[in-house]
Structures are given as C-alpha cells and as structure tokens.
C-alpha cells in the first residue's frame, strides 16, 4: 500500500532525523516551508521554500530497509521562517500513486504546558525525541572585535577636515570662507538673512549631541547591578568620547551645506556612521567638481600643489597610525613621505572606504602604499576591520549636477521626539511622509525670479547596510527662493519599502538648469529619519528580581550545553588545564536556540605529540557559546508565570540595540584530572535576570506624518546574567 509517514526521532551531527515509511511506493521527496493550508481536505505546506530532488527507495544516499527508513535532513534547511516539513511519496516518477504525510512542525514552542522537554534526567543528547529539541547546532563563527572601531573612526573623523581641505576644492572654499570671516568681521557681517541659514540649528544639534555624550548615552544599555564577581574590563566603549568636539565645530560649514540637523542628532555620536555620511557627501561634491579641479590644476604652480598632496599623504599616514595593533613596520611603511609618489592617496582611500572604485576596497589601496616600500600587510585584524568598512554602493543613478555652494537646501518643520536618548525624526507608517524643504541663498545678488523648472530626486537607503530602498523624482515648476516647498511626499503605500525602526538615509537633490550655462546645477542634503508602526524599542532598564538559575535539567535542557569532553586512555594520570570563554548572543532571525561548536587550541602538551604513559599534562584554550532567540527567551517568562511579550512587542525589540546588549562573555580557567580511561566533561548553564524593557508607542502624529509624541510602555524580558561552568568526571 502506498504510504507517506514521517515521524521525528532526533537530531544528530547537524541533521534532523525522521522515521519515514513510504509503503509500496518507490519514489519520495520532502518539502520544507512555512505555514499550513488545506487542499482537498489534506494538510499541505502553504509556502514551499525548499524541495528535495526526487529520491528513490534504492537511492544510495538513504539506507532503506523494507518500506521504512531513517530520513536525514540537514539542519540548515530550517529556520524561523522555514519550520515545517512534509514527505510526499509516489509510485512512479511522473507523480502517480501519490501519498502525503502530515505536516511536521520542527520547532515546537518551549511552553511550560508542553510535556517535559526531556524524558529522563539523562542529559545525554542521544536518543532524544524531536519533540524535546528546540535546539540547533552551528559552527562557532565569531570573533571578538579586537580593534576598537569607535576609536578608529573617531581618529578618522579628526582627520577629515584635512582630507576635505586637500581633496575637495568646494569644501576648501567653505572652510577658507569661515576662516576669513570669523576672527575679524563684526558679528553683524556674518549674520545670515533670517531663515537663510541652518548654522544655529547645526550648532544646536552638536551641543545637544555633546550633552548626550557627556551623559554617556551611546546606546541603550542595561542598568545592570554591579557584578558580584568582577572580571577583566570588557570592551564597553562609549563611541561618543572618541569624537573630538573641536572637529565637529570645525565641520559646521560642511554640515550646514550637506547634512541635516536631524542626521547629526541621529548619528552624530557614532563615528562610523558620521564618517560614512561625511564621506558620501564629500565624494559627491568632489565628483561634480573634478573637471574644474583639473582645469585649475593646469594653471597652478608646482609649488602650490605640493602642500595639498602632502596633506593627503599626512591623512593616510594618520589614518593608519590611528589603528591600534598595526605593526610598527606597517606604520613606518606609510609615513607621509613614502606616499607622495601616489596621486591623491586620500581620495583613493576615501573612495575605497565608501565602497567605490575597484572591488578590492580599502585594503588594496593600503597595500598599494605599503607594497611601494616592499612591506606586506598581513595583520588579520586590520584586514578584517578594513573589510568591514566597505559599503555596498548599489543604488539608482544619481542625476549629475554641479553643486552650488552659495545655495542651501533646508528641511523645515521637522518635529523630533526623544528615543534611545536622542532626538529623532520619526514618521508614522500609517501616514504619508511629507518632507517640506526650503531653498535659501546668502548670495548678495540672488535672483528674484522663480526657478522655472526643477527636478527633486529623493533616494532612500538603509543607513546601516546602505541597501537601496526607494527612489522618487518630483518635477516642480516656479520655485521661489525662501519659500517652503510642500510637494515632496512619499505616500504610505510607497513607504512600505522603508523598514520599521531603522535609520533611513534620504539623499535629497534639488536640481535646475543654469540660465547661462544650460548645465545642471543643484544642491543636496543627507537627512536621517525612521518610520515606526505600533511599538518601538527604547532601552533596557534594571533587573526587577534576583537572577534565576536555569538549573532544571528537564525544563531548561536547551540552555544546558556540553562544551567539552575528553580524557586520555594511554596515560596513567592526566591533567587538562583550560582557559574557557563562553559567549551568549541573540540571533534575531531564529526562533530556536543554537548551540555553537567548541573551538579548541592546545597551547602546551608534555607528550610532545607522542602517547605518554605517565602523567600527561595539557594546557589549552576553548571557546564556545550559544545563540539565544527572542522566542525562547519569551517562553522563559511563561515558565516564570509571567506574561510573555505579544508579537508586536517582540518585533519591536528585534533590534541590533538589543542584540548588542545581549552579546556577553564569561571567562574562566578550569582544571580537570583523571586516570587512564577516565573522561571529563565541562557543562554550562545560565542564570537569567528579568529586566524592565522600555517600549515606546506613537501617541500623536501631525499632518506631515511625523510622530510628535511617544508614550512609554514598560514590559519585562529575561537576559542572561551569569554562567555556571560545571566540571564532571566519570566515576
């Protein structure tokens, strides 16, 4: 009889195992996907995301005995969105004689009203029914950020005024203008026309930001109680303290021209994001000016070019010098004088860091400089850091235009609200998004007539990943300077392309045809905002009760992890000393817990590679960890008879802010001893603290779609606070 029966039996070596029975059928196939639907009264997977090849009962990959057999499916086929499997069998390859199994859900909930997760006290992972496992196994694929990125980017930003001064004549002009006017001219001479300058706003944003920095407001952090067992200081860096306020002040004219106040408020204390925004703007202007720069260079004297080039070389040298951990030989190799042989090194670096130019990115450019003096850069950390800097530049083509430095684009009527300790511009996902702007100029002979035809290009990117999201062009007529332009609107249907609760970067260009030159002229500005729906994650608060050990080996078995097991059968006595690091982090995309494999490194072994018959002494390092899931943590609340977060609340906390706060490490040293034939084991399990989590809900939204008031809602959510390392030895 044709059958199709699928029963979960366990999990082994990265495979989910099932007992399958196809009766008298010969062929079978399994499908993995999400959701369940009924078709002609039979349950089926609603959205099939993976379909195996058609296999036969004699297929060499599957050992089939009689009509039933063990079907093994690699774990990586499943995740939070692909959590169901179904077996389909048929008599002939054309699909006749079809039979389908029931739809099996791979990751059941960790609900407390489920039967015990493990049938016995035995902690062994063998012979465990599928119902009891909400756990995946993954390779350990992490490394600690050894270099301080905030420190690096802070140093980089300090160097930017020099870069811009050397590489972008346009910005140089802005800076020289500031220097000319500020020390000598009377205050009234520098006063802009009312409404024609954003300088005060920019200065206000910087002051705001510095206030935040002083308040140690880099990112939401849990207000954890003082640790009872102090460990060596971990990397918990406030990014803010690595930006020199003087640098920010020096950059005011630049910000005023191309970066909105809202952008500064959102990212001004994050060196990396700020650098990317500055770099993007500087390069855009430089590209527009390149032709005129070349023309000017022809008339320049050699003497006048040398200092600029040396400034660029100095920047590159400063850039590398700012990176801790770079071997001195590398630093020596990129001293300013060694770089003077290259054309515009800082421009090359800047372009590479921004992901432009050739695909090999910054590292190649650095190697270019270094190889010039016969040194090779092989520092893995540096390579990793540089690799992480490059951004994808995929987007729509930007309309080319010549930047007019005496014209400014200003976003008006922006209402900010406090979120993550910063003032932010938030738009409601349920409204159209209005971006009113105003075009101003400080030119003494500004034309009084309206600009007859204008194109406004709005390009939206995910500010974190630089992924392109949306582009819209607006064709406008008769635009009068100093008047508010209200027709830059993204409808709520178009705004579906914009992700919730993430910084979105709007690059808005205002372009018109020059009256005399007939070429495109324009101004642009980078503007940050967020769109929000029901809930927003704000911050993690203090722990509300004493830590809870997850020491119930049945209910909390998924949180117990056997990280090491070993022994020596050839030595009379043995002794293993291990430096252990165990990490917790959160995988925001998974619903299951993932135990990470253990990485081992032997430091010393008195057997020297031979089998030792006496006292074997081995010292080494191991590191392992666990990726938690929000779903699994949420179910811990149920086990404590507390209300779990609802789906909207869970979605709100599914943020990188939370992940950052949940990424933790415990370090310890353990020693395990035994006699010949003994085995020893190292287990871990966590204690968790229930923390207050502050969510925000949009309360009022204005006619522009901007959120003008947020209300606070406090919920509770668990976070690991400590780890138990338990060593055992065979009896």
């Amino acid at each position, binding site marked *: 009889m044709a059958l199709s029966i699928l029963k979960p039996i366990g999990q082994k070596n990265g495979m989910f195992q099932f007992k399958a029975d196809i009766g008298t059928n010969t062929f079978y196939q399994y499908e993995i996907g999400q959701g369940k639907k009924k078709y002609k009264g039979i349950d089926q997977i609603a959205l099939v995301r993976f379909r195996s090849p058609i296999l036969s009962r004699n297929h060499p990959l599957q050992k089939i005995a009689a009509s039933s057999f063990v079907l093994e499916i690699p774990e990586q086929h499943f995740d939070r969105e692909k959590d169901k499997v179904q077996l389909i069998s048929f008599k002939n390859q054309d699909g006749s004689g079809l039979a389908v199994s029931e739809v099996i859900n791979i990751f059941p909930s960790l609900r407390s009203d489920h039967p015990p997760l493990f049938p016995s006290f035995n902690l062994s992972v063998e012979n465990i029914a599928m119902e009891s496992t909400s756990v995946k196994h993954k390779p350990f694929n992490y490394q600690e950020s050894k270099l301080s990125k905030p420190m690096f980017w802070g140093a980089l930003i300090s160097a930017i005024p020099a870069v811009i001064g050397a590489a972008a004549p346009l910005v140089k002009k802005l800076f020289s203008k500031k220097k000319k006017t500020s020390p000598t001219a009377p205050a009234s001479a520098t006063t802009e026309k009312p409404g024609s300058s954003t300088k005060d706003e920019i200065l206000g944003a910087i002051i705001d930001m510095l206030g935040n920095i002083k308040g140690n407001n880099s990112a939401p952090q849990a207000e954890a109680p003082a640790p009872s067992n102090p*460990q060596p200081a971990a990397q918990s860096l406030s990014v803010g303290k690595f930006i020199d306020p003087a640098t920010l002040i020096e950059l005011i004219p630049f910000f005023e021209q191309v970066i909105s106040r809202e952008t500064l408020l959102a990212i001004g204390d994050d060196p990396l994001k700020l650098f990317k925004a500055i770099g993007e703007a500087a390069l855009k202007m430089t590209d527009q000016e390149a032709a005129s720069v070349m023309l000017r260079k022809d008339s320049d004297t050699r003497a006048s070019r040398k200092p600029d080039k040396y400034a660029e070389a100095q920047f590159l040298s400063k850039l590398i010098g700012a990176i801790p951990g770079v071997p001195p030989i590398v630093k020596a190799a990129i001293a300013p004088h060694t770089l003077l042989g290259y054309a515009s090194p800082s421009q090359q670096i800047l372009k590479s860091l921004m992901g432009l130019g050739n695909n090999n990115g910054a590292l190649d450019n650095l190697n270019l400089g270094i190889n010039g003096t016969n040194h090779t850069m092989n520092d893995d950390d540096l*390579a990793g850091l540089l690799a992480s800097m490059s951004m994808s530049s995929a987007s729509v083509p930007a309309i080319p235009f010549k930047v007019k430095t005496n014209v400014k684009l200003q976003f008006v009527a922006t209402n900010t609200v406090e979120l993550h300790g910063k003032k932010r511009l938030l738009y409601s996902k349920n409204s159209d998004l209005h971006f009113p702007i105003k075009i101003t100029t400080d030119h003494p002979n500004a034309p009084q007539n309206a600009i007859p035809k204008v194109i406004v290009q709005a390009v939206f990117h995910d500010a974190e990943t630089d992924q392109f999201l949306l582009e819209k062009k607006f064709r406008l007529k008769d635009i009068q300077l100093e008047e508010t332009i209200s027709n830059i609107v993204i409808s709520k249907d178009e705004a579906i392309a914009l992700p919730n609760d993430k910084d979105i970067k709007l690059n808005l260009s205002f372009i018109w045809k020059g009256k005399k030159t007939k070429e495109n002229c324009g101004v642009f500005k980078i503007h940050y905002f967020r769109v929000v729906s029901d809930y927003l994650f704000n911050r993690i608060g203090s722990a509300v009760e004493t830590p809870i050990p997850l020491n119930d080996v049945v209910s909390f078995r998924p949180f117990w992890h056997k990280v090491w097991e070993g022994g020596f059968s050839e030595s009379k006595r043995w002794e293993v000393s291990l430096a252990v690091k165990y990490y917790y982090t959160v995988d925001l995309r998974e619903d299951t817990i993932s135990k990470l494999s253990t990485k081992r490194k032997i430091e010393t072994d008195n057997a020297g590679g031979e089998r030792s018959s006496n006292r074997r002494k081995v010292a080494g390092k191991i590191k392992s960890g666990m990726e938690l899931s929000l779903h699994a943590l949420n179910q811990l609340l149920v086990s404590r008879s507390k209300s779990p977060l609802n789906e909207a609340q869970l979605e709100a906390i599914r943020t990188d802010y939370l992940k950052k706060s949940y990424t933790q490490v*415990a370090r310890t040293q353990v020693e395990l001893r035994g006699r010949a034939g003994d085995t020893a084991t190292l287990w871990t399990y966590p204690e968790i603290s229930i923390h207050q989590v502050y969510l925000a809900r949009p309360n009022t939204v204005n006619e522009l779609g901007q959120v003008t008031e947020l209300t606070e809602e406090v919920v509770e959510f668990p976070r690991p606070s400590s780890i138990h390392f338990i060593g055992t030895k065979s009896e």
Partner: protein
Amino acid sequence: MNDQYQFPDLSHTYTVALEDDPVLLDGQRVLFDKKVTLMPVELEKKTETNES
C-alpha cells in the same frame, strides 16, 4: 517544574565536600561548579577575509 530535576547550585560548595558527598550529572561525578558573571563584549561574524 519538578524539584527533583533541579540541579543544585554548587558554586559555593568546596571541592572537598563534593568528594565526600558526590553529586552526579549525566552519570558523572561533579568536580566543581564555577559561577561567572557575564560581561558585555563586541562580537563580529567571521567573514572570508578575516577567518583564521
């Protein structure tokens, strides 16, 4: 939750005491229970370029 499945907190117990009054876990004798506070750390996924 059932008390019989709750592994005792032995982090304040001397190793000597564990020898005199052994506790078994998964059929093996417990040697120690070290409780360590978790500290924040910056982790990054290894990529092809920085995998060592």
